């Protein structure tokens, strides 16, 4: 088995995550799609670190993980705030500016 298979798996997961972001209307599920995309890039980073024999790829994957954790805190806080005022977690209901 070639190591490239890991990259193909990462590409598949990334595409599924992107499609989730585009298709689902529940803000929390959209968020999970973003998490899936970040995870897929991490897998690609780790695989490239192995291909090149250089640990920098793993360090970058570590940075991505930390940024993802920070992003989740802020994003979920925004979702909770929107839910409190609008009683809905659907991205279609947040359209105050279009009225």
């Amino acid at each position: 088995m070639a190591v490239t298979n890991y990259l193909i798996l990462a590409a598949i997961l990334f595409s599924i995550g992107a499609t989730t972001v585009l298709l689902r209307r529940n803000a929390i599920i959209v968020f999970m799609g973003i998490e899936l995309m970040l995870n897929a890039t991490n897998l690609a980073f780790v695989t490239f670190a192995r291909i090149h024999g250089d640990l920098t790829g793993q360090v970058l994957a570590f940075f991505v993980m930390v940024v993802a954790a920070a992003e989740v805190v802020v994003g979920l806080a925004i979702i909770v705030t929107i839910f409190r005022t609008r009683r809905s977690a659907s991205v279609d209901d947040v359209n105050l500016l279009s009225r």
Partner: protein
Amino acid sequence: MTTTSGEAALFGILATLMVIAALGLLFAKRAVHAAMCVVFVMICLAILYVANEAPFLGIVQVVVYTGAVMMLFLFVLMLVGIDAADSLTETIKGQRWIGIVFGAGLLVVLVSVLASTDLPAAVGLEDANANTNPTGLAKILFGDYVIGMEVIGVLLVTAALAGLVLTHRQRLGARTTQRSMAAERVAALPEGRLLTPLPAPGVYAQNNAMDTPALGPDGQPLEHSVPRVLRIRGQQRTAAEVLGSEETLRSHLGLPAVGTALDDPQIPAIDEPSDHTSTEERD
């Protein structure tokens, strides 16, 4: 460097399961199911990291992603309501098909780029991991990327503050204390509210259940000792019913009837009216 056949088998099994679980995220109706699918994908990813000679990242993946991030998602799902269903109305016309086409196109582009790229043979991380993987990572993290490391620390603190500020809610009314609640109760006394706690349901010699009313000191059943929900549903029993079922049980077992309890003029006489209503409801 080629991988071992064991790793190939591991990859084959895990990759199939992961793609299925990721599709579960895309198609699951309930947000909780989607969250569980993502948790599964992340645990499988941790195993693949370990197989890819990144044991530290594998453990961080389990601790940070499945342990912290996904649990945060589940907490927010509990706050927002699990039954928050996905709306199927299209706000932008044809958006669903555009999304599907975009996703499929992205997949085709990425995979075809990967297929046409001639990647060098994998070097492997034996040399880099010579002093164990965390040591090697730490050397790069605190050497080449030390400023990035500091910035990430600032980012985390900022994010924690942002979480606090965004979810902060200002109090609209006065805070209810025990003293104010007590004053409210006393003020509501003329309207017929009780000052004391409600009496507990009846405890009898052979029966102790929420649906049996307690008897007051005057022998009258206390209706409000049965929980309100049971009373609304008509699921409460009377003391006479409890005694009756006990008698039936005794007769089935061939034991002599107690008799005296039922002959007691007080209990059946009092419970008869409510007894009738409850049997009618049951029929």
